[in-house]
Structures are given as C-alpha cells and as structure tokens.
C-alpha cells in the first residue's frame, strides 16, 4: 500500500463505494478504521448516511474512494438506491456473531445484483472476527492466519491483550460458547456462489480492513473509473490499457494484489 513513491505522477481515479448491512454490524467502524485508523467502542448508530473520502494507493494508480456509509436501520432502507445507484463497488457487511445479519446481507446482495449498475464489485465482509474465540483453523478457516507477518501489526495484540469481553459473550474464552455464530466456511461458500469478494475483518483490531478496500480497488476495471486527474494520461490511453481487464474475473485481483488477503 505504501510502496509507491510516485504517487504524484500516478493516474488517479475516483471510485464510489457503498456500505450496506444490518444495523450494528460495524459498517461505520470499518470505515473509521480505514479512514482514520481508529476504533470506538459503543459507537452510536448512523443516522441517514455519512459520506467520506479516502485515498488508496495502488502500485499503478491512486484510487480516491468516495464512501457512502449507510445506516443499517430498516427505516432508512428506502434511501439505499440513491447510494448504490452509481456505485462501482459495495461492501455488504454482516456480523459473524449474528446469523440474522448474514440473512440481511444476502438480501442486500440480491438487491444489488438486481438494481445496481451491472459491473458493480461486491465484497461480502464478515466483521467482528476478533470476537471469535475458536483457535485459528477451527470454525474459522485459515483466513486469520494467512495474513500473519504482513502489515496488519495491531491484530496480534488486539486479539490477545486489551480485547474487551464481547457484549454478549459473558464467559469469554469458554470453548463451547464461542460468540461466533457464522463460520468462515459458510460466508466464503456463499460469496463464491455469487461471485463476491470475501473477507472476515475486525474493525476493532484492524484485521483485514485495509485489505478489503485494496481488493476492491484492484477489482474495479479501469474503464469503470472516473478519471479525476490523469496526469499525462489521455483517457483513451487508459481505457485501452484497461480494456483487457474489462469484466474482470473477481478471482483476478485477488491473485495479483499482494496486499489483499486470500480467502
């Protein structure tokens, strides 16, 4: 992510991204982590929607995310089309401790597939992975492990030390009362069926958060990007470059982005 020194000369484009998902799954927390690298316990529900921007440096270009963090409450649902209408990407978030939130996520995915722009890149995100007490590779698959040693520095401490007991988890640590209620496998299989990117994240520890956004940035065909300012780069040239990538296979970006997590 931080490897590029040539940011100034890289083409830069903007990508509209919308976050959808049941109330309290952690959408705002993910955005807060991504934008400010900060986490807040007991965050109050979003009212309406928040609009934020954040740059993301890729090796060959700079992406400026224009993020709509929507409220999960039902009463705001009717406004959702306004946010996803022109979005090139969506994060559909559920909470791994709350099975109903995955049901809701499926609804959002279906709605996006029906109504959003056809090329929209969707990532399914199971958040609050820090609450899972099962050892890596048990309920959770290798997801948590595959990233060890990479840039997500805080995750180890967070998982170990200052991790406050989960809201619902009274006896944190007891093997048979793992707050996790949705297995990694279940999430991943659904994502594969629907051709979605898939991540398990923790906004609290920071685990995989950057990776989700990077993966999305990589998955968006350049032709679909609005050129903000492409210094020395004609629009034509860029679309020519990107032409081969059009209708990109969602497995593609995961393969070539070294930052994004493999699922």
């Amino acid at each position, binding site marked *: 992510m931080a490897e590029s020194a040539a940011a100034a000369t890289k083409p830069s484009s903007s990508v509209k991204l919308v976050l959808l998902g049941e109330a309290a799954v952690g959408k705002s927390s993910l955005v807060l982590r991504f934008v400010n690298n900060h986490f807040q316990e007991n965050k109050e529900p979003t009212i309406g*929607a928040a609009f934020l921007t954040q740059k993301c440096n890729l090796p060959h270009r700079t992406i400026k995310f224009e993020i709509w963090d929507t409220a999960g409450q*039902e009463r705001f649902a009717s406004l959702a089309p306004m946010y996803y209408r022109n979005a090139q990407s969506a994060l559909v978030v559920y909470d791994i401790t709350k099975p109903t939130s995955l049901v809701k996520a499926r609804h959002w995915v279906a709605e996006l597939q029906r109504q959003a722009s056809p090329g929209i890149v969707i990532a399914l995100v199971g958040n609050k992975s820090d609450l899972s007490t099962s050892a890596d590779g048990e309920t959770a698959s290798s997801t948590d492990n595959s990233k060890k040693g990479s840039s997500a520095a805080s995750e180890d401490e967070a998982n170990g030390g200052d991790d406050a007991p989960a809201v619902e988890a009274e006896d944190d640590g007891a093997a048979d009362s793992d707050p996790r209620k949705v297995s990694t496998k279940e999430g991943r299989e659904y994502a594969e069926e629907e051709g979605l990117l898939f991540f398990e994240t923790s906004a609290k520890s920071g685990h995989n958060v950057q990776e989700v956004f990077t993966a999305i940035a990589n998955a968006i065909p350049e032709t679909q990007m609005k050129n903000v300012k492409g210094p020395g780069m004609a629009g034509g040239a860029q679309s020519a470059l990107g032409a081969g990538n059009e209708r990109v296979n969602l497995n593609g970006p995961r393969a070539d982005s070294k930052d994004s997590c493999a699922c």
Partner: protein
Amino acid sequence: MSDATKSQSELQDDHGDSPAVRPNPTSTDLPTIALQKPEPEAGAHVSTEEKPPPLPPRPARADSLYQAPIVGPAGLRAPPSTARPRLQATATTAVSRTDIHTHSYQDGSRETYAASKQSSPPPTSWGGWSSIKRLKSQEASDSASIRSYAPTLGTAGDVDSLLVGFSGQEQTSGWNIFNAQLKETGLQHDDVFEEDMVLENFDQEFDEIDALEGEDKTEERLLARWQAKRKHFMILSSAGKPVYNRHGDDNLISGYVGIVQTIISFYEGAQDQLRGFTAGGARFVVMSQGPLYLVAISKLGESDLQLRVQLEALYMQILSTLTLPNLTHLFSHRPSTDLRRPLQGTEPLLSALADSFTRGSPPTLFSALECLRIRKAHREVINDTLLQKRCESLLYGLVVAGGRLVSVVRPRRHSLHPSDLQLIFNMLFEAEGVKAGGGENWIPLCLPSFNKNGYLYMYVSFLDVKEEKDPQQSSQASRHDEIAVLLISANKESFYDLRSMRDAVVEELEQNGSMAIIRTAIRNGRFAATDIVPGTVLHHFVYKSRANVQFVMPSYEPHFTTLLARRRLLSLYHTIHAGAHAKNAHLKVHHCISRSSISLAWITPSFELYCVAGPSASRNALAQSANKVVQWARREEERIFIIGGAVF
C-alpha cells in the same frame, strides 16, 4: 415477526413517498415574516390545525421614552402607519416561536396555550399601568416618525413601557420607573428557594444502572440505583408496551411501568385525564400524545409546565424519526405495535435530550435559541454569502457554531422553529451518532413544527474537525468549538447540489474573513457578566428576547463550572421561571431568596430577564444590574441576536 416486517415496509414506503415539501398548516399560513412573533396572539394558536391569525405588524423600536410606540394589553400593536409597511417586507428572524413553551399549565389541558396568559396580565393589574402608557403614547407620537425605526429590529415595539427610558441617556430614569412599577403595581413576589434538593451525588445521575461490578448486580441493588435517579422519562404505548425508558432495562422496571400504566388507564377509564401527581418526593407528569403516553418523573423540583415542555420535546423527537402519519399508521394498523423497532437508533437521541434536560438546558427552559455573538456587519457578510451561493434545492441553510446559531438563510415564506432546531442541535451536538461518524452526512428527518407529515433531507458538514488523538478526552471540549454547515432540502436527491454549495460557501467564508471571525468568537467563548456590567453583583443571567425567540447569557465561569453548580443554577432558573409563569401569575417581577443566592425574574411582553447574584447582594444592586443588562441587550441586540437572517 411477519407483522412487524410488514409494518416496516409500509413505513419505508411512506417514507419514500411522503410529501416533504409542505410545511404544517400552521406554518404555511404564516405571513412572510420568518419569525412568528410571540405576541399573545401568536402563542395562542399554536400547533392546532387551525389557521393562525395574521401576525401583528411589527412595531417599531422603543428606543426611548419618546419614541416608543406605546403598548399595553389594548395597544400591543404599533401604529400601522409607521410600522406595518416595513414589517411586512423585512423579516425579523429566522426563528419562530412555537408552542413548546406555551403548552400547558399544571391543571390545564395541552390545548390551553400559555403565551397569552403569560404575557397579558389580568386587566385589573393593568389598568393603571396602561393608562400611564397611553398618556405617554401621545407624547411619543410626535417624534415617532423622526427617528429611524430600524426596520430590522424586530423586538421593538412590543416593548412594555417598563423599558421606556432604559435606553435613553439617563440611566436613573429607567431605575425610577422600575422601582415605581414595583411600588405602584405591587407586581412583585418573593419566593424562598428550597435549594437543598436531592442533588447529592448528582454526577452519578447519568451513570448506567447496570454498569456495576459482577456480584453487585442483584436486582435489589439495581432497583436501588434506579430509584436513586432524580429524573426518569418513560414512554409507553396506550396498550402498555414500553417504548423508551431513560434508565433501566425493561425487565428491571417492568413493575414500575406496569404501575404507571395502570394508574393512567384507571383515569382514562374514568373519562378523566391524569396530568400529574406527587409521590415519594417525586413529581409525576403524564402527557398523552396520540397512541403514546409520555411520563416524566422528577425530583428536581421542576414545574409541571416545564416537565411538559420536556415531554413535548421527546415526542417531537419521535415524530422527527417517524413522522406523524407513520406513527398513527403503525398503531391504527396494530394497536399492540412494538414501537422500539421502528424507533431503532432513536434511543440515543432521546437519551441525549433527556440528559440535557436533567443537566439543565437553557434553550429548553426558555424555549429559545442562543446565537453566536458577532458584529452585525460581520453577520451580514455571512448572510450574503449564504444567499449568493444558494442552490436551487435549498430550503434552509444554517451555520452553527457549537450549538449556537451564526447565520440562517431561508425562504421568505418559511420560518424555522426553535423546537425543530432543538432536535437538530441535539442530534448534532449532544448525541454522538452524526459527529462521531466523521465526514459529511445526509440525514432524512422530519421537522415536526415545520411539517409533521413528511421528511426533509439535511446535509451536515462539520468544519474544523481536528485530528482527535484521544476522542474520549477531546470530544467533550471540541464539540463546543465546532462549526457546522447545515443545508436542508425537501429533495432527497440533492446531496451533491448541497455539497457543492457547502464547498462554495466555505471557500467564500474563508476568503472574506468570516471564518476567522467565527473562529475567534468561538475561541473567546461567552462573555462574563462583569464584561457587561462592570463590578456587577450578578453571577449569571439569561436575557430572552421574546420577539426573536432567542436568549443570551454569560459564561458559566467562574461560579457555575461544575455539573452540580450548573444544575443548581438551572434549578434556580426553573424556580423563578415557574414562579413568573405560573397560571395566575400576573407578576412582572419575581424575587427569590435563598441561603446561597438572590435572584430575580422580570417578565415583560418583549423580554424576559432572569438573573442571579450571591446571597449578600442587595435587592437594589440586583435590580440595578438587571437594568444595566437590559440596556446592554437593547444596545447590542443586533450582535447577540439574529434579526432577520438572510431571506430569499
């Protein structure tokens, strides 16, 4: 479950389709003046569906004894020839008074609106008084046309002649009149303030009840903690379903909720409406609003009227989330509806309101707004900027600094209501939801006093958001120096329009120096009482301009810095406010003496002044300072209040 989801989707539909543009009937019919003047007439019609009477013409300013158009119960209006034409053309303020303040009396139904009674004393006590005034009015009429009436000065003409002379050259004349009034009319009342209320450990009032260590968590302990709270708010449906409690979860207090519900329905059954009762040192006030009961339980010594104002605000918040048609629909559809689900996410807003009432909220108590004090010319530049950069879809535009209004732009035909602004300010500056999200926000909300039937869309952008390393620490402090631009539209698609308007406005404000002026004003904070009246005995005061529906007050420093001291001060204000506004109060001046303070409420048709001094201050010194404050407020009117705002 399926029922619940069904009503959900209907809710959404309504949400999408509901007409957002049209304001409530009461406000559509408003004349072009933004400010609904708090004349008795204006107060009397509020919130009903009926058409408000036309606003009285805006009287001219009472600059001096000789210039003042004389007002009295019979003559509240200025001579039409002088005042009216301009008044219609020039708006006073962007804010209008609403019913909140005037809602009800201890014994009265909600339909009894107070304003008329509050501001027009019984004829008996006025006979002599107004005849004096009439006399003076004749003297005044000659010179009336000579001096400028300063059309922007809205407060003016309804100035009670109490004030006449105050802004003249001789300070003593005001003092004499003041004294004379006390003597002549006997409109004075002393009160001994029971100060040592249950304010012990007041700082624990806001602690969560179940935030206890493990073994302490017995129900008994929790209930004891619940009972120790000085203030409770409960909202329940007519069917008895809990909707909201400030303290304690449903399980813990279900017994209490049941009792309250039983008592209410007992009275309902007897075709009688329960309004309030006292039990165990707590005052219970019950308000029934459509399908909801709202209950306030207070040991803080607030009056029923004041508690009703608070309940009304909570109800407004519910309407703001749902709109009235949605609320009614939910219950007519299914009387046993659990409103918690549709209200999901509103709880923090209700609690933020509730807690601000419990801490003591001047805007709520006085039903008025506070503005940022800046020079008139500076404010005009800001107004002009908003007007110039205004986009098509804009309905209202506001610049707000730490909960204080800086500037307003609005259509000529529409006013902004303090109760609506209170909801917005609560959402932005008291609750965390919007602020903590960072970025810009797009918020559908119903402004019930504007139009309780539909949603508007509010663009919110906080400027100056500093990097907060330790948000726990800094959020409290920084919240009060944050500048927010609020742009409200009836069009839910107008986010990007409003956003570019914001960009243009902010750029221009930076360029023309306004932003720096605002920042300086925020940094300087509120003035000290001694800045206004050097050496004054006053520790604190609140001056409310009734015409502008705005108030001004000095800093809480140095006497009222702690939560407790501030609550004491506000309790005192509650007491003298209640005394001065009690149903049969024809009192113009209300004194209150306690072991630790001496205070005074002074009510006139044009302003209300509440001031507090230390216990050793003499009554004379207090009254003298009060006069000085009034003089100052008149002089500085255009700095401390927004008069007119920018109108398009």
